[in-house]
């Protein structure tokens, strides 16, 4: 079953009793931008993501699981052809690349590998 909730930014804001204006001020963004990030109308930039992690003490993958999943799916789809290219080679460079690519699924944010 697909995940229902793809962003927990508003959950954490409400949990700590912060208004939109207060959190926007903390993150250094405008109130309208914050609402767009909460409603996922706009992808969250890295500097805001890091700031959210620091404010709430929660990893980005837990705050924005939908955003992470989209990135991970795209990344894994791009990794597959590269892995297929290096899989049957036995030179040291290819072995290094194989090890890197094979470790990638283990670094996904707690989801089963596609």
């Amino acid at each position, binding site marked *: *079953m697909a*995940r*229902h*909730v793809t962003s*927990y930014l508003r*959950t954490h804001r*409400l*949990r700590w*009793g912060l208004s939109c204006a207060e959190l926007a001020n903390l993150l250094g963004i405008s109130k309208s931008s914050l609402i767009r990030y909460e*409603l996922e109308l706009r992808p969250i930039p890295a500097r805001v993501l890091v700031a959210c992690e620091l404010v709430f003490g929660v990893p980005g993958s837990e705050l924005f699981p939908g955003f992470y999943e989209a990135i991970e799916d795209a990344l894994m789809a791009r990794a597959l052809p590269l892995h297929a290219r290096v899989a049957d080679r036995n030179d040291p460079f290819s072995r290094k690349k194989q090890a890197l690519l094979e470790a990638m699924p283990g670094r996904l944010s707690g989801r089963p590998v596609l």
Partner: protein
Amino acid sequence: MSELRESLVLAVHPTARGFGWVLFEGPEAPVLWGMVSARKGREKRLYARFERLLRRHRPTALVMESFEGDASRRAGRIQTVCRTLRHLAAVAGLDIVIYPRAVVEACFAKGGRTTRFGIARAIAARIGYFDHRMPRYRKPWFAEDQRQSLFDAAALAMTYFRHAGG
């Protein structure tokens, strides 16, 4: 349990001033919550907000407290609001679960917590997500605090998961 975790449940508790709502994705995992208010005669605003909730979050089930029959003492206007919300949820394809007040109270009856305020305190202590919205103790001559509806809705959602989980 994993199926329960993945079902998004919307619980609403209409009052004279509007309704309190909570969205749970697990037994003690609220995702979002809020209150909607509208003056008498402006119920369309309540329905529009409710439809927006359904559209935006796509819950799988709606949980409400029993509002018809002898056991319920809800005013005619609130009964109409409840019926309309139930209809809107049915049109959107949600499972609709309605619990009598006694079932909700039975879920929180440990330690004698059976008043609405007692249940609200138990929820605030157990979940801690909206303890800062805890209403003040209501003396008989005070009107009910609107924030109470938030905890009433949360109690309904927790009752749902308690029953769904067996």
